[in-house]
């Protein structure tokens, strides 16, 4: 279909949806729910209980939260509607909250009160010979308004263990008027001296992040710039690839290199197998130390399992150690017991397919969530046309980029009020998985790649601990090779065992000086056996960290972090400090200044490489080595980044939020390939240097090469400006702009240096709209513009027998993605159509990336 028609259809759909829905919908669920919640709590505080309850119910309908149920119940108690109060308390208890025992007692008290009232009413009726007449839907007796004089005396005696003396009886020294909760919201006294608990007044719909400080906090308090992808963003986008969800964020670079591989970096420095971002799932690192990358397609969770994704922009080594170089992405999954059950299936052109099924439940203190899924991801474009006589392919199906299935499960148990433990396990198998690999290797096939993980964790008031084991087992090869050339096949196994414990405490050291202290240690075992490594390697890493957030009154906070990591490869400790100062000009705004460093250790491929790499000459190989045979003491240094940043965040208004950051990064010691050195005559006389043909492959070594720290430095000046607007109900707009001015500093460097190597766009614009209607139609449109990019890739020059920088220019491109869905069967079912690259702007996102074209998928989901 011509491009224009698609554009028209999309525009028409969007316009129609807006016309039909304007004024009746709620867009950003969290924002809308928060507004209703605020209004409801305000009304209750003012004694307008009915209006307040209605607002809370609206908030709950938009975005369910157990505390809202509790507050509704509590408000019903205040108005004397005990039966509704019990109903909502019971719904609250279904979520197995930490205070379930207390609430259960309240329910018991209320039920006893109801029975007693009924008995008293019956007794009174019998005394006057009147048959009982209960009002429909209400309690048999409507108590007098809360706080009415004489209520305590006129009502029945207090019930329950906490009942005696709890009601703020007039004349008992209590101040007049309604009591005030901890956060200043008015709390009405319970009728009849029933202790119905206090309203849960914290703003339950306030966004919280945990990644920037290892503790739940408002983004306003986070010491780093932090972005969030919400569950709503995920659902409305219809996107089924987790990393693609992040494209809308300022400062985040997304590269679709193959159908299965999306590389993510933060504030530039993206590359094939991006290695400068640490990705966590609920705090568990999924960094593949073997190659220094995140293989997003191998995660054992799907987009349906995600509650939110937090993206911390800027160095994170002070908290997370190595490899949190220029950002941390933490995927927060839905908690066991939450999210219900359901499935989501999709099918699209080029035989793309997606499926996911999940179930979640709770039995008292025990909660679980299990999920499974599959994906069939086609390539964007083929490197090997069908019918080629001269090329052998490792995977017969050259249309597929990844075919995978996954399963994941988590079980948690609440032990007492403050302690919970849990275990999680996941497994995924990809067969095949196609990636754009590093160095001279482009199209690479992992077939199969089995990934397993098991973790256990403990959360308590002062101790947080977890341990996990990640396991990778892979067979890999070049996707294709000319007949006569090797597939460069290999087998590998990677085991990572990681244990971490931290002590957490909040305390005061003076008036208005509050600390949030985290002190912890981490141990990480890495064991890797891979055909491409000289030998099986085992590393024992240790890390120690301390984090203290010191709040000085309401407006100032100082955050200090320090982490020391022992890196076995380097045989030394690498230190990572971070300091941040926060100033709150108002309650909902923050000015932030940061200074931080981070590092990335050489991955195993860089540190311990030792393998012959096929060359275009059938019988010859290049010997790739981490440590040269003739200089075994050679050590790569870790890549380093120094950052200073100023940020401003304002979420004062219910109609918009504003986020901005201005930063300077200095990046040094990037690891790159060396030029190949020919095998020399002297090598022939050195036994440890491989110079003879391999008995197995027959390759004659011609050259050696490895890795080195680049001499050149990068100075990056950047800015990120973002705004999110909620003009009317049902409409949510966002726009952000990223400026990246990347400058190379080659002073003092010898040898060839790349002409221009920005690796990112100088200008990037993301904007979009989300729409949700009450009659079930909802969708989103996202527009992305990236200005041209200059890349310097190291390529093999056959004629010169050298590896040299080759400059590539990527033209600017735009992406317009659209999603339109319709919910039915009481919102349990949904069909959704998703179009990626609606304008069919054919482009590459990496010089060696596949050509991205338009892709369409239809999805159907059903939730139990």
């Amino acid at each position, binding site marked *: 279909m011509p491009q224009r028609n698609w554009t028209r259809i999309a525009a028409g759909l969007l316009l129609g949806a807006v016309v039909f829905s304007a004024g009746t919908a709620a867009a950003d669920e969290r924002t809308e729910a928060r507004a209703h919640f605020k209004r409801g709590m305000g009304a209750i505080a003012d004694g307008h209980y009915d209006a307040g309850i209605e607002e809370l119910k609206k908030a709950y309908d938009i975005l369910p939260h157990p505390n809202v149920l509790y507050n509704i119940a509590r408000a019903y108690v205040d108005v004397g509607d005990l039966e509704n109060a019990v109903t909502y308390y019971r719904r609250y208890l279904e979520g197995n909250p930490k205070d379930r025992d207390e609430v259960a007692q309240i329910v018991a008290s209320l039920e006893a009160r109801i029975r007693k009232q009924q008995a008293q009413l019956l007794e009174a009726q019998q005394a006057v010979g009147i048959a009982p007449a209960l009002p429909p839907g209400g309690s048999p007796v409507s108590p007098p308004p809360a706080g009415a004089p004489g209520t305590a005396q006129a009502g029945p005696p207090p019930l329950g263990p906490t009942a005696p003396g709890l009601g703020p009886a007039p004349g008992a020294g209590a101040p007049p008027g309604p009591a005030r909760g901890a956060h200043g919201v008015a709390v009405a006294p319970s009728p009849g001296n029933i202790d119905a608990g206090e309203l849960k007044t914290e703003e339950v719909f306030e966004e919280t992040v945990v990644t920037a400080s290892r503790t739940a906090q408002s983004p306003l308090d986070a010491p780093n710039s932090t972005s969030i992808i919400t569950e709503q963003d995920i659902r409305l986008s219809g996107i089924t690839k987790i990393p693609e969800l992040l494209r809308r964020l300022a400062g985040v670079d997304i590269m679709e290199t193959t159908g299965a591989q999306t590389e993510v970096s933060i504030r530039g420095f993206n590359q094939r197998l991006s290695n400068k971002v640490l990705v966590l799932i609920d705090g568990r690192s999924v960094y593949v130390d073997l190659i220094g990358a995140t293989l997003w397609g191998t995660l054992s969770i799907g987009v349906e399992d995600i509650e939110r994704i937090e993206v911390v922009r800027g160095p994170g080594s002070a908290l997370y150690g190595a490899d949190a170089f220029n950002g941390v992405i933490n995927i927060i999954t839905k908690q066991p017991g939450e999210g219900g059950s359901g499935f989501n299936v999709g099918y699209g052109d080029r035989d793309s397919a997606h499926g996911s099924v999940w179930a979640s439940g709770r039995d008292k203190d025990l909660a679980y969530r299990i999920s499974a899924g599959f994906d069939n991801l086609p390539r964007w474009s083929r490197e090997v*046309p069908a019918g080629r*006589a001269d090329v052998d392919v490792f995977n017969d199906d050259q249309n597929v980029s990844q075919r995978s299935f996954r399963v994941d499960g988590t079980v948690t148990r609440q032990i007492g009020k403050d302690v919970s433990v849990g275990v999680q396990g996941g497994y995924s198998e990809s067969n095949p998985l196609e990636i754009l690999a590093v160095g001279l290797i482009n199209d690479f096939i992992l077939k199969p790649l089995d990934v397993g993980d098991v973790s256990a964790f403990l959360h308590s008031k002062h101790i947080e601990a977890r341990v996990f084991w990640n396991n990778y087992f892979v067979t890999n090869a070049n996707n294709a090779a000319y007949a*006569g050339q090797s597939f460069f096949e290999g087998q590998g196994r990677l085991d990572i065992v990681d244990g971490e414990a931290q002590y957490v405490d909040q305390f005061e050291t003076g008036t208005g000086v509050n600390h949030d202290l985290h002190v912890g240690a981490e141990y990480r075992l890495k064991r890797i056996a891979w055909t491409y490594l000289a030998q099986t390697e085992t590393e024992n890493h240790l890390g120690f960290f301390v984090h203290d957030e010191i709040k000085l009154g309401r407006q100032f906070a100082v955050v200090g972090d320090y982490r020391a990591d022992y890196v076995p490869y380097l045989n030394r400790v690498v230190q990572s400090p971070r300091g941040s100062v926060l100033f709150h000009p108002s309650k909902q705004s923050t000015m932030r200044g940061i200074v931080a460093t981070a590092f990335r250790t050489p991955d195993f491929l860089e540190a311990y490489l030792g393998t012959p790499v096929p060359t275009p000459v059938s019988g010859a190989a290049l010997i790739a080595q981490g440590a040269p045979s003739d200089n075994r003491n050679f050590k790569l240094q870790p890549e380093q980044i120094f950052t200073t940043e100023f940020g401003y965040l304002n979420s004062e208004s219910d109609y918009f939020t504003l986020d901005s950051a201005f930063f300077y990064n200095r990046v040094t010691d990037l690891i790159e390939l060396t030029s190949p050195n020919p095998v020399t005559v002297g090598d022939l006389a050195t036994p440890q240097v491989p110079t003879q043909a391999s008995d197995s492959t027959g390759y004659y070594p011609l050259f050696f090469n490895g890795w080195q720290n680049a001499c050149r430095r990068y100075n990056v000046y950047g800015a990120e400006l973002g705004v999110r607007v909620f003009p009317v109900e049902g409409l949510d707009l966002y726009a952000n702009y990223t400026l990246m001015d990347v400058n190379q500093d080659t002073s003092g460097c010898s040898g060839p240096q790349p002409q221009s190597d920005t690796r990112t766009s100088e200008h990037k614009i993301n904007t979009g709209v989300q729409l949700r209607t009450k009659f079930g139609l909802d969708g989103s449109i996202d527009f992305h513009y990236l200005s041209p990019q200059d890349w310097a890739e190291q390529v093999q020059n056959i004629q010169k027998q050298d590896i040299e920088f080759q400059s590539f220019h990527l033209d600017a491109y735009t992406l317009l993605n659209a999603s339109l869905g319709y919910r039915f069967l009481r919102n349990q079912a949904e069909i959704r159509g998703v179009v990626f690259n609606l304008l069919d702007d054919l482009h590459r996102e990496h010089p060696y990336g596949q050509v991205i074209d338009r892709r369409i998928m239809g999805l159907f989901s059903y939730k139990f």
Partner: protein
Amino acid sequence: MRTARLLVPLSFGAILFACGSVPNDPGARIFPPSGVIRGTVVYQGPHPCSRNGHIVGNAIVLVFDRRNPPPPGGLATTAVNFGDVTGDRLFANEPRYQGDDMIYCPAGHGITGTITASGSFEIGPVAGGSYELQAFFDYTGDWLPEFKFRNLPEMGDIVGGDIDTADALKPGNVGNPNYQPVFLPVDVGIPQALGSGANGLPDAIPDYVIPPAGFVADNVTVTIGAPLTTTRPYFWPTGLQYNATTMQYDPIESSAQAAANPVPDALKNALETPSDRDYAYYVPVLTMPQDIQVLAPPPPPTSAVGLASLAAAVPKFESSFPHLKLLSGVPSNELSTAVSPSQPFHMQIPGNQSKNISVWAGSVFDPQKSQYVDQQIPEGNHIPFFWPAVVLSKLVDDYQPDANGSFHTLDPASLTAQGDPKNPVIVMLGITESAGTAPADSLLGAGLPAFANFPNPPNPANYVDPQTGKPKAVTGQDHLNVILRPSVICFDTLFDASNPDKRGTLVTPYLTGTSSDPTNPEPNQPLVPPDLLTNDDPSRQAVKNLVSNVQQGCLPKGRYAINLVYPDGQAWTVPNEAGACSGTEGPTDYNGLTCTLKQRPVLLSQGNRAVVEIVGPQDPSNCTRMSGKVPPTPPQCGSQQ
């Protein structure tokens, strides 16, 4: 609202039908169509050696472009690709010696006989073209592709290729040491029509284009079965200068002058000056001016001009040419290092290393006459052609200082021959002097028998061993003398894809010269036969295969490596890696004869001095555009002159 609701299922339904195939990459990521050569190596020879549970050596298959084959048929110094069949795979059923204390060779333990084995091979990518496959089994396990001193088969290896076995079995070819196997063409791609530029080319080879689906030249059979019985022609060179008094050619000791040498009296002074000592090791063994003028050959003897006159003319004629002396093996002080198994070089120089060069007269079998006919050099004059052939190839090694005043920074070990569009392949062909029964260091000795038999045709007995009836090979020579022609052939055509004629331009400073006949020194006698490229005499065919036109011009300045080539392809080249340290080995320590960064022995005889250097003109007015008798070096010889 209802309309909006309907749109969703409609669009959803459309999506389900929106399938399609994955498009091919429209650009650079696509695997470009290429050629592949696939076939079988068939081995027939002795049981292989083994060690540590593995067969020693592999079967190597070398792919050469038929338009530029290796010597002696062409000039290629490296194959366009090569593949191998590992010994373990080729001899899967052969028992192996499990110990690693020695290399076990069955032949050394009385196990003789011939076995047959085969293994498949694939070589790719290969560009479209017509190729020849040369192959050998590396019986000794010494072959390495990257070093000149180990990159060819050696004595004991079993050689072969995709050859015309019927031709090899012809009576005149069996046992003929001069026989050069005929390699069958292996065509990769779709042949294109010969362009107009190919008209008249001998055995013109068309262009080949790889079709979009790629091309596999399948079922190629490579036969390996001929053991090499001679070693490579190891040598080390020295320059010669003619002593008119003694009428002998004496070795040049320290007087060679070269532009590369910063001081006069190059070697001697350099050696005596500590700061220049390292330059001494770059002083060429022989220099030749760009505008070198030689004498024209004497006229053939006639009844009027007798042999006596010829005997006087020939030395005069010959002495006007530069001379090289190639001494067998290596100097005695380098021998133990050169042959030691624990050192890198593994040269197969026997104990009597001073007499290890084989020489034999070039001859071809005339089936009509059923006899071998001698080959003359292209210039004729009854001067016989002798193997081994001597070919000098121009190196990239800089002959003039760079911007910093430093010499030899491009190629410190003088190893790399030119070969790109700016610096095309340039060769100089030498004339091997020898007669057969004894070293004959002059044309007088070599050619006189031919002259002497005037007016009769050359006597086959001079070139054929009466015992065997085959061309007469003379082994055990301790040296060869080589006359250097004052001409080069520039092959810029090798880098012009649009030109099907890959022959080069012969460049010589003078087309005519004074006759060397002392009795009648006539000027303006032809130095290059006017009919060099038109005469159908068989002796001209070799040069006609290489040269398409002749131009007068100064010779391209620079340093030239020296190659000695046997007809079976065995060869030796100086300078080679044994003689100097490459860049990553660090500068050569000439005092310790080792490399600075990676210590290993250095054989000076194989090093930087082992070159002929063409230096500036004798007449400064030559080689310029403004004046002079000799025009500048023509552009076919590249831009770096």
